[in-house]
């Protein structure tokens, strides 16, 4: 009897390899693999992804070579210098500061804050949604009340008030303050998906066999909704670029002396600037539009991958 079992389970190396290969081909490819296929199939998406990554890297590396305090010094000689000259590629503002340099440093600041905000607020939103959706019942009810309350707070006003109360703040504190107010969209989405996911058989099976709740949530449910998480994070990254820049545009974002895309666009608040010295604000505005459009396009392509019927990248069989 024992020998029989041993005979049945002993498989030659070659067979094992062949079987594994077959199983891999049969199995649904991972979310990352599907997404990559989709990008290869959709050339505009691949190009915008490439441009985006190159641009972010360029901005981060280039701004290392710019001396920010020196750049922000006033230089009378450059007062509203015209663009397209060897010294001022994109002209200069009222203080004679080079717009091109401000644009690079400002982009770095704005993009980094948007990335930080996305990471913090999405992580929080995802955890909130997972816990709320998984446990359900009273836990869910209590967490939903907090969510409801956060939704009625006049966000922009409250952020402005908090920013004026805090005497000294920098990019990091600002990111943290913003994160308090921007997790609700993610949490709502993740919660509704988790609610339906935790009704499935594999969760019930896992529960019966005594797996801990935390392990079920983060090791079993979360991987299963990972494609949704990736899509949502990308789309909220595009949105978050508008958050800090909008606040800086109003004058309540990054403190004075720290350039941001928003403060550059705020140059347009002066009626004389907006028409006469268009180069002080238009490049930043165009940059934000291109950035947001390309990130959100990438998000749309990713979203397409979550729906098998809409995919363009073919499964190779």
């Amino acid at each position, binding site marked *: 009897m024992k020998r029989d079992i041993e005979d049945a389970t002993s498989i030659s190396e070659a067979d094992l390899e062949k079987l594994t290969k077959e199983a891999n081909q049969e199995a649904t490819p991972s979310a990352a693999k599907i997404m990559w296929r989709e990008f290869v199939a959709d050339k505009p998406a691949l190009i915008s992804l490439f441009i985006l990554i190159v641009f972010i890297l360029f901005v981060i590396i280039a701004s290392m070579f710019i001396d920010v305090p020196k750049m922000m010094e006033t230089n009378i000689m450059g007062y509203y210098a015209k663009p397209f000259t060897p010294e001022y590629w994109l002209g200069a503002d009222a203080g004679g500061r080079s717009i091109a340099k401000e644009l690079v440093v400002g982009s770095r600041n704005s993009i980094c804050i948007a990335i930080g905000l996305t990471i913090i607020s999405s992580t929080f939103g995802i955890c909130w949604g997972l816990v709320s959706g998984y446990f359900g019942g009273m836990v869910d009810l209590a967490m939903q*009340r907090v969510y*409801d*309350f956060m*939704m*009625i*707070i*006049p*966000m*922009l*006003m*409250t952020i*402005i*008030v*908090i920013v*004026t*109360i805090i005497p000294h703040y920098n990019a990091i504190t600002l990111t943290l303050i913003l994160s308090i107010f921007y997790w609700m969209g993610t949490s709502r989405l993740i919660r509704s998906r988790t609610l339906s996911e935790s009704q499935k058989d594999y969760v019930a099976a896992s529960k019966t066999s005594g797996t801990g709740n935390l392990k079920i949530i983060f090791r079993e449910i979360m991987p299963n909704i990972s494609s949704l998480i990736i899509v949502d994070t990308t789309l909220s990254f*595009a949105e978050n*670029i*508008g958050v800090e*820049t*909008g606040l800086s*545009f*109003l004058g*309540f974002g990054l403190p004075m002396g720290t350039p941001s895309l928003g403060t550059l*666009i705020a140059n*347009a*608040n002066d*009626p004389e600037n*907006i*028409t006469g010295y*268009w180069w002080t*604000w238009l490049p930043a*505005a165009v940059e*934000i*539009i291109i950035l*947001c*459009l390309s*990130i*959100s*396009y990438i998000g*749309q392509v990713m979203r397409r991958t979550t729906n098998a019927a809409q995919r363009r990248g073919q499964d190779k069989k």
Partner: protein
Amino acid sequence: MWKTILRRILIMIPELIILSILVFLLAKAMPGDPFTGSINPRASQAQIHHLMQIHGLYDPWYQQYWNWVVHLFHGDLGMSYEYQEPVVDLIKQRGANTLWLALFTMVLTYLIGLPLGIYAGRHEGKFQDTLVRVYTYVTMSIPFFVVLVIGIWIFGYALNWFPTSGSISAQASGLGETLISRLGHIILPGLLGALFGTVNIVQYLRSEVIDAKHSDYVRTARSKGVPMKDIYRHHIFRNSLLPIAAFAGYSITGLLGGSIFTEMVFSYPGMGLLFLNAINYRDYTVITALVLLYGFLNLMGTLLSDIALSIVDPRVRVE
């Protein structure tokens, strides 16, 4: 259904209380004291202390909060230090302007969004649908304040089609002229807000129409020989439009939030601009009143939408 409404109102009360405490504490934390600007700068420290004692500023915070709430219920929001006017009067003047703009934007949003959503749903998967999808993708992605700046630059300054600041021109006299001048000042901000605010309506309506198209009652109607046009008019639109109408309350939140940007770019004297000025002058009675008012309006908007939805769609009711 009454249960749903009652439950929603009961939930609303603690939310309102917490919001008011939060707003009150934030206002307390703001720098400066309420007598800045209203007293003689040579007043001695002792006199200021005396004033603060009279006005109860040395009481514990819950005592002060209670006094503030009592005043609130008497319609007394205090005096604005910057304008030396009761806050209530100030908000009445500015609120009318914001309300005009918000209503105008909302009407335009629905006028643009409804046909587009239905059109896209009707031509699902075709060229027209793709066009609408590109439109929603572009309007959804670009931050609104950039749209406003570029809009005022092109249509306000370069082409000079619309006024670039204020809510009414100084020369306007008589009822007709005032009305036209008022309208002229809100067309551009209203149109921009509407064009870039239709995403939710279009996407929701599109999927509603597509769902309805494949439902059994439509198939029955078609097999009976009802023309497609009539099916759309009598069956699909009715079913899809009701939930959309109920969404109006939710859009208040977006309109109010956006009003700060719109009013700043267009120097439109509404509540958003009032708020920004109040922040700059540390006029904190005005700030408190506005944050509370916006929160209250958000709450009422969601409440109305929830109730309307529960009337329209029995599935969301609580038993």
